[in-house]
Structures are given as structure tokens and as C-alpha cells.
């Protein structure tokens, strides 16, 4: 065993110059992974703005008066479950089971749409109580950060609709499967950003 490791270390191993170029699937998913990392860097700017401005409430309402944690918990569960069904959907696509994929995609879409509906009704409620984005620096930062995540979820739902249409029209061909892989990476990455949002904005702000 140790002998094989020694030879692998001294030779050109695949991925470090040996064995020719990597398969298209690996290259595509790695490129999309780089996009996701840069998207997370973009969100870090919004998180930094929120962290700096969260105390600047300009005598307006603070987070503890505005946030309803029960609602946030339901939102989180919707997003976690939609990530789960998205993962299982990707799995059934890999196994060439289009009908299972379509059913699971419907669940993913419904759970994502439920998340978005709860978030939008929260925004509408806040604006109608006079706590819109122009009320204070805290609320500007809040709407920018949480709204940007919501915009990503909206884009994800549109993308999912488009992918379902492609699977119906073209079937599970290799290039459709590559796009599906990118979509599931995107959808799981939105979960990771949402964990940051609930921790920094809601759980710390509601205290």
C-alpha cells in the first residue's frame, strides 16, 4: 500500500498534469464551484455592512421588536427540506429516473416557493408598520442582505423551472445532467448563506 502511494507521489498524477484533461463534468462543476465561492465573497460584503450597521436604528424599531422567530424557523425548515429533495432529485437524475426526478423537483419548487412567500409577507408586514428600508441604516442593511438572499432563491426557482422543462423536452442527456449538477450546487449553497443569515440577523438580532 505504501509503495503505491510513493509511486503516485513521484509521478504525474491525474489532476496535476497526468492522465490528460479532466472530464467535462468535473471541469464544469469546478467552474461553477468557483462562481459559488465568489458569490459567497459578494455576500460577505453585505454581511459586513449589516454587522457594522445593525446597531444604527435611528430611534426606529430594533430587530427584537420586528423579528418573529417562529416564522424564521418555518422558513429554515422549508429551505432545509427543499435542499434534501433537491439532493434526492439529483440522485434520481443520475440513476436515469426522470419521473422520480420530476416529482422531487415539484417538492423542491413548492418548498422554495413557500420560503419565498413567508419572506415576502414578512417584508410587506414590516414596510406596512413603517419599518421599510428607508427607516434606518439597520433596516437598509437588513433589506439588502435578506432581500439579496431572497433574490437568489427567486433566481433558483426560475432556474429549476427551466431545468424541469429541459428534462421533459430533451431527457436526461449528459449536458442536461451537467446543468442539473450546477443547479443543485447553487441550491445547496443558498442554504449555507441562509444559515449565516439566521445566525447573524435573526438569532442574534432578536435577543
Amino acid at each position: 500500500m505504501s509503495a503505491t502511494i510513493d509511486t503516485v507521489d513521484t509521478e504525474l498524477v491525474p489532476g496535476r498534469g497526468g492522465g490528460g484533461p479532466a472530464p467535462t463534468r468535473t471541469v464544469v462543476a469546478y467552474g461553477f464551484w468557483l462562481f459559488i465561492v465568489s458569490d459567497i465573497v459578494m455576500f460577505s460584503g453585505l454581511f459586513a455592512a449589516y454587522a457594522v450597521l445593525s446597531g444604527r436604528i435611528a430611534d426606529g424599531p430594533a430587530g427584537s421588536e420586528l423579528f418573529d422567530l417562529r416564522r424564521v424557523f418555518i422558513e429554515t425548515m422549508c429551505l432545509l427540506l427543499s435542499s434534501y429533495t433537491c439532493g434526492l432529485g439529483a440522485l434520481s437524475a443520475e440513476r436515469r429516473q426522470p419521473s422520480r426526478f420530476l416529482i422531487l423537483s415539484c417538492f423542491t419548487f413548492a418548498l422554495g416557493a413557500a420560503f419565498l412567500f413567508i419572506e415576502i409577507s414578512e417584508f410587506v408586514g414590516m414596510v406596512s408598520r413603517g419599518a421599510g428600508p428607508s427607516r434606518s441604516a439597520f433596516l437598509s442593511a437588513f433589506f439588502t442582505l435578506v432581500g439579496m438572499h431572497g433574490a437568489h432563491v427567486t433566481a433558483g426557482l426560475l432556474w429549476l423551472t427551466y431545468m424541469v422543462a429541459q428534462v421533459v423536452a430533451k431527457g436526461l442527456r449528459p449536458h442536461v445532467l451537467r446543468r442539473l449538477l450546477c443547479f443543485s450546487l447553487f441550491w445547496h449553497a443558498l442554504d449555507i448563506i441562509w444559515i449565516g443569515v439566521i445566525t447573524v440577523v435573526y438569532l442574534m438580532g432578536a435577543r
Partner: protein
Amino acid sequence: MDGVDHPYDRSPGVEQQESTANFLSYTVGLGFAVLLTIASFVVSQTNLLWAPGIPVGLIVLAFAQIGVHLVFFLHLGSGADHTNNILALGFGLLIVFLVIAGSCWIIADLTANMMPMSGNASH
């Protein structure tokens, strides 16, 4: 052995071939994620932790949950075939840390050195 079975680098989200193990991975990941979410809400709403330590506890739970998502949903591993993915993620996390910690540091320093102002202007 691993190098023979997977001769190329792997990208995130690409699973190995055993599909029952993958189903299990998603299910276990969902279980962990739900447990950690419930733990975060409980910690923030109760006096289970010493009050000044609650933000630290919440951050630790958040990092644990991000780790669960990376491993069980994005299938990120520590093997040699994941070196490129981990390097990209590590660089991203470095930038994230610099932007967030740097902003907080600079603004806290600015606030501390502000001229004292009267009334509620400090808000």
C-alpha cells in the same frame, strides 16, 4: 486504491457510485442540519448558555451546520481528489474573513475615536 478507483479530480456535488450510500448521506445530513438548527434556536431563546457566551455558541453552531452541509450535501471530502475544491473554498473563506472582520475592526475603531456628540446623534 482511491487513486485507482477515481483517476481524476472530483468536483463538489459529484457522488461516488454507490447510490444507497448517497441516499443515506442526504438523510443523515438533513437530520444533523435539523438538529443543529433546533439547537441554535434553543440556545438563542433560553438561558441554557451563560448569557454573554450565547453569540459565541451561535457562531459555533452555525459553523458546525455549514460543515454538515459541505460534507453531506455538497459531498466535499478531504481526499487528494478534492484538493482543488478545498483550495478554492479556503481562499474564499480567507476573503470572507478579511472583509467581515476588517470592516468590523475599522468601524469599531472609528466609532471609538469619534468626537463626543450631544443628544441622540450617536445613533
